């Protein structure tokens, strides 16, 4: 496209002062007093390489059509940006929409008698799932139940006496929450457990 257009544009550019052409051709070395017009046109011959002619030196004698093209492109970009920004902002929900749930600091899970030795129970802790375990020795442990691998919800498995994630078979130690097998990279965050009035109460550590 540029070939055809530049040859059409040529007549417009030619009357421009030769300074613009000399400016970038080496022998001129920045000065205006290069060896006359002839040597300059030798270096930048618009017929031989119209594209170079257009790209390098046109800027300085910006033609009307080139100006319009740039202005048009700039306007399109500007409009695009102006339109895109509010759309991205619109689609990004405000943080902490479930603030109420996130404020929860302690939860009453169930009666002690409802969680026999060697079992576990999943429950909701405010905004995230959690698990409480009564181990074989009668010790209580509680953890955030979001698998540290890809975020599935873990559960206590009585047959393995460990915390297990069904999604990719990750395993955690039931008393410390440490990741012991499978893909999980980190231990589960620990929650505090207490017995209050014969009820199991879990709170943030």
């Amino acid at each position: 496209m540029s070939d055809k257009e530049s040859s059409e544009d040529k007549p417009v550019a030619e009357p421009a002062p030769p300074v613009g052409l000399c400016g970038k051709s080496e022998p001129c070395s920045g000065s205006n007093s290069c060896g006359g017009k002839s040597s300059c046109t030798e270096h930048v011959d618009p017929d031989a390489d119209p594209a170079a002619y257009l790209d390098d030196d046109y800027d300085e004698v910006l033609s009307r059509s080139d100006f319009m093209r740039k202005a048009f492109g700039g306007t399109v970009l500007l409009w695009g940006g102006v339109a895109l920004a509010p759309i991205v902002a619109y689609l990004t929900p405000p943080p902490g929409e479930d603030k109420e749930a996130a404020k929860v600091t302690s939860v009453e899970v169930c009666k002690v008698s409802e969680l026999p030795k060697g079992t576990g129970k999943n429950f909701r802790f405010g905004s995230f799932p959690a698990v409480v375990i009564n181990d074989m020795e009668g010790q209580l442990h509680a953890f955030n139940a979001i698998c540290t691998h890809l975020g599935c919800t873990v559960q206590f498995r009585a047959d393995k006496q460990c915390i297990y994630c069904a999604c990719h078979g990750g395993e955690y130690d039931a008393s410390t929450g440490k990741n012991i097998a499978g893909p999980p990279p980190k231990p589960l965050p620990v929650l505090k457990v207490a017995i209050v009035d014969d009820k199991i109460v879990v709170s943030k550590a």
Partner: protein
Amino acid sequence: MVSNHSHRQVQEQGIIQYIEERLPVDGLRELAEKKKVPLHKHSIWYYLGGIAAMLLGVQFLTGILLMVYYVPEINSAHASILKLNSQINFGWFVRSLHSWGANLLILALFVHMFSAYFMKAYRKPRELTWWSGLLLMVICLAFGFTGYLLPWDEVSFFATKIGLDIAEKMPVLGHMVSYMLRGGDSITQATISRFFVIHVAILPVLLVGLLGGHLFLVQVHGISEPESFKKLPPEKKSYEKFFPTFFFKDILVWVLAINVLFGLTTLCPWGLGPEADPFAAAPIGIKPEWYFLAPFQFLKLIPPMVGPIEGELFGILLMSVVGVVFVAVPFFDNGTSKSYAKTATIFGWLILAGLIGFSIWGALS
């Protein structure tokens, strides 16, 4: 108008002539008559694109019908599917058609893509056709991923959870993109709304546009001929006419595919698990749809950390190499080098074997 014709003649010819005078029918007729399909031992693969297009039609029709009863609301979504399955006349049928259709469509697309790959149909001048096809594949996988959440049962919840958490691990834009798709930090009503809009509005528009381009390019270039066929002397090459020969065979194949679809739909209607509970444990034995099984099984094998990078990220980067190769293959194997051509073919077989192997392994384990 046509004053020197009798009234009756005008009536007979009227409609055809009316159209011919206004639309370039001759051009189209010429195109259909000129178009020819090469006949060789791999010709059977030429039917797959048509099957995919037909199944897409089924998805559009059934999808629109589903929208009449489906409610994209967190407390009603599961119930609305239950109602479709049990109370609406033919509701189970429409829904099963949509679910099975989605599976067959993706299967057809996989076969279509690999056959194009092995016939080296991505070479000049068909690069744009190849890339638009890859994008169509991505769009259809996105259809599958977003649609899967909508019934809001146990597996759909965890499939979405894992999918978005994987996206979150991608460097740079991962967090922003997954946060926007999820509509927050956890899967809620916002996620259902977003997935619904993507599934029924954004993806269909993208799909129709891109499919139009893809089919247009196929018309422009004609059907590609594999190297072994191109080498034959002209008198040994045989073709059949696209219209009517191939066209009617195409229709026959569609009817066969529709029968497979109806068979699956009626013999094994699509099920529905218990309603999703964001605070319950993931059910033991949970698995993704078969077309995500291979990456699923692959990710299971990678240790938590590979050197300094997290295993997940490492796995994803490794798998994106496959994507990059598929995008770049027209540059690499451009028909000028025999050994590059061979490398591309071997790579294709390795990927295909890997996909099938990991899928079977994932299904069995």
